[in-house]
């Protein structure tokens, strides 16, 4: 039986992971870019990013660019792996329809 990942299954977190996994490995996206892409609020995105970071699925990199604080987000190797497993689980549920 397929194993769905409960952390990733939440709709906003699922979309966050999908966006991050779509990037080339090693690339990271700006927080505001991700917010605009997913059409969510700062607070909502921040809360879900914390949960994914706590689970070790994403890495959050707070830095300064031109003396301004910036936050970059990337999927970790573990995050990419569990996301692929989650997608495989969804596909197996669909096949068993």
């Amino acid at each position: 039986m397929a194993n769905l990942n409960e952390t990733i299954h939440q709709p906003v977190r699922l979309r966050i992971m999908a966006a991050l996994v779509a990037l080339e490995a090693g690339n990271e996206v700006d927080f505001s870019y991700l917010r605009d892409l997913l059409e969510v609020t700062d607070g909502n995105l921040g809360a879900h990013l914390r949960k994914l970071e706590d689970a070790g699925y994403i890495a959050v990199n707070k830095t300064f660019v031109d003396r301004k604080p910036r936050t970059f987000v990337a999927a970790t190797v573990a995050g990419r792996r569990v996301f692929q497993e989650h997608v495989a689980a969804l596909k197996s549920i669909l096949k068993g329809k």
Partner: protein
Amino acid sequence: MDISPSEAEENLAAIQAVMQKTRHSIASSGTTVTLIVTGIVWLVGFVSTQFLPGEIIGYVWTGLSIFGTILGTIWGFRMGRRVRNPAVAATAKRAGLYWLFLVFFCTVTIAVAWPLDGKQVTVLIVLFAMIGHLAMGLLLSFAAVWWPLPITALVLISYFLLPDLFYLWMGILGGGGMIALGLYIRLRW
């Protein structure tokens, strides 16, 4: 944790939509910008070279080079603000140095091989530029590796098989092809 097949289908559709939107968003300012800007420069520059008198062509290419550099810099800056690769950022200075060396080696090659006609100089410059793009693609972004290869093939075909139409071929097929490819990736990918 159990969900219904229809819910699984909805989730997969949502994943697909976000991944496509992300790729499209990135593609619209990455490789596509390079392709479209270079395509415009080639189209105007080479078609002008085919038809305009020699004394005007220098001004056309100078203007196009300035246009391409400014546009490429602005878009590169915008792109860097949204998506970045820390490993790439760390090697950016080395990449810049690589391009300087490549320009130096290209200039030296032309000087050693001199006298050359305009077509030979053009082919050498384009070949060195494609080597540069290929190397950058292999080192920094594998997705950008493939496009210098068909462009190189196009240049060599026109140089060896269609010498009389060389500049026109380079402008319309090379430049126009890059613009079309850039637009296709931006709109359809």
